[in-house]
């Protein structure tokens, strides 16, 4: 089979013929092996062609899933990096108190442009609040920051995970794959 053959042309490869199969000298190989009906070859070729397409489609389907996963993973990776950058940024904001996980801190910006964390909320400051308020964040126990409006959602997530962790012992011990929890 020549390599220069364009890919879209399907060629049919027939089994090599032998003049002396299993030690028996054939009288006339031409006679024995001649393709009688030319459409037989076409049928063979068509079948190979079809198989090619199926495999290509199959592969393409599976690759699409992987591509989708890659895209999702990339998206997640980007979010992780962005979150990390924001968390690190917030940890480097000026702050005079030793921060304690589980506490909400309030971010302000001074006239000089310096941002700082305070334990006083704008409400606690009242009308005499001297600096522009930028937002409130809760410092989580993993040292990440949750914006104040997502605190409740995040707390729920954490409590669900806590529940899973505390109930882990109750998960069925099965060596075979099962779809428990996915169906019904």
């Amino acid at each position: 089979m020549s390599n220069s053959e364009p890919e879209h042309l399907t060629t049919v490869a027939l089994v090599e013929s032998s003049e002396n199969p299993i030690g028996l000298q054939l009288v006339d190989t031409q006679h024995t092996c001649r393709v009688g009906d030319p459409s037989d070859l076409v049928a063979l070729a068509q079948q190979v062609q079809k198989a090619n397409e199926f495999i290509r489609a199959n592969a393409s389907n599976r690759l699409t899933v992987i591509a989708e996963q890659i895209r999702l993973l990339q998206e997640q990776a980007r979010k992780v990096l962005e979150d990390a950058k924001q968390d690190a940024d917030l940890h480097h904001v000026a702050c005079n108190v030793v921060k304690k996980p589980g506490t909400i801190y309030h971010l302000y910006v001074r006239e000089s442009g310096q941002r700082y964390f305070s334990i006083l909320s704008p409400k606690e400051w009242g009308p005499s609040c001297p600096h522009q308020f930028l937002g409130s964040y809760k410092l989580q126990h993993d040292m990440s920051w949750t914006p104040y409006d997502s605190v409740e959602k995040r707390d729920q997530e954490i409590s669900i995970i806590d529940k899973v962790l505390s109930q882990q012992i109750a998960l069925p011990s099965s060596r075979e794959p099962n779809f428990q929890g996915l169906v019904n």
Partner: protein
Amino acid sequence: MSEKLPYKVADISLAEWGRKAIKIAENEMPGLMKMREMYARSKPLKGARIAGCLHMTLQTAVLIETLTALGAEVQWSSCNIFSTQDHAAAAIAKTGVPVYAWKGETDEEYVWCIEQTLFFKDGKPLNMILDDGGDLTNLVHTKYPELLQGIRGISEETTTGVHNLYKMNSKGTLKVPAINVNDSVTKSKFDNLYGCRESLIDGIKRATDVMIAGKVAVVAGYGDVGKGCAQALKAFGARVIITEIDPINALQAAMEGYEVTTMDEASKEGNIFVTTTGCEDIITGSHFEQMKDDAIVCNIGHFDVELDVKWLNANAAEKVNIKPQVDRYTMKNGNHIILLAEGRLVNLGCAMGHPSFVMSNSFTNQVLAQIELWTNHTKYPLGVHFLPKKLDEAVAAAHLDKLGVKLTKLTDKQAKYLGLDKDGPFKPDHYRY
């Protein structure tokens, strides 16, 4: 003032720990506990609404609870943005006393905290000030002058605040009678002499673990602080050299058996250098250059002006930070100098400052000054007053039982012979203890 917070501290869950630590402090503050014993029933501070602005520490917690035991309503803020002990603040907040203080306030939050203490929960304003450093006094005088006429008195804890009071008084801007607690004998002696006598060694040992016995220690200045430092170093077995500018103090040092010489001479001999003068440029570049290898240099005098740290930073070949508050400089001649607390107060930077017992003396002065201003306010016209000698003596007396001291009483005959009241005051005002 509609939505005033009941308190603001860093972490209220520290209250239990704070309470345990306050219990221990109480045992070391016999003067304050004596005040509770003497006045808890009569409640001389009933009706007083005291706004306090003083380091919110465990010792201050004992002061606050003494004031409330004597009938006062108290609200508190700290007089320094970093000095609050959060567990002490939490324990006090837990008892329902409005306290607004946490370690690491911003300057703006600091003022906010003081402002929270001006109006009490029923909307009534303060009528007494207990201050340390003068910020509360100044705030009321400048931003809330309408409150001044309702305030009976100010008691001021420290030198800075007292300076401020005298300045206001001479300018005519002081509007409330004040008592200078800082210059009571029982305050300044304990702060300067007995306090430093313990905390100097504590600071040097925590920073360097150096053996003091056998070393040559140079103490610059032989005032109360210098006397305490020299005595402590000598007691550890150091040979002490004093430098002085005042012939009286120099002679005192010589009479105690110390060598007295100049820093130019002493800098060649010393292994440990301590400045206590309150003056600037005591140890300068030329002195550092003459010092022995690994000389330890520290200051327990006035802020950070006594040692020329700037020269060291500019002229040393190398500076290595050993641990917080301890730096080792390599000089160009190859010798090393170990500088403690960057030339600032070594007993605060490298140790824990004053023990509770020392604070018991100054805080008992505060309590008596508050009672005096509240109950005898007609005795105190506008101006800055000392606590009467009799009360200074009462502060000391309040500490005697705890130490097992048995005081001798004058007989009527003896009192007559001396021309004194047998219950004191025992000394004229000019007496130097």
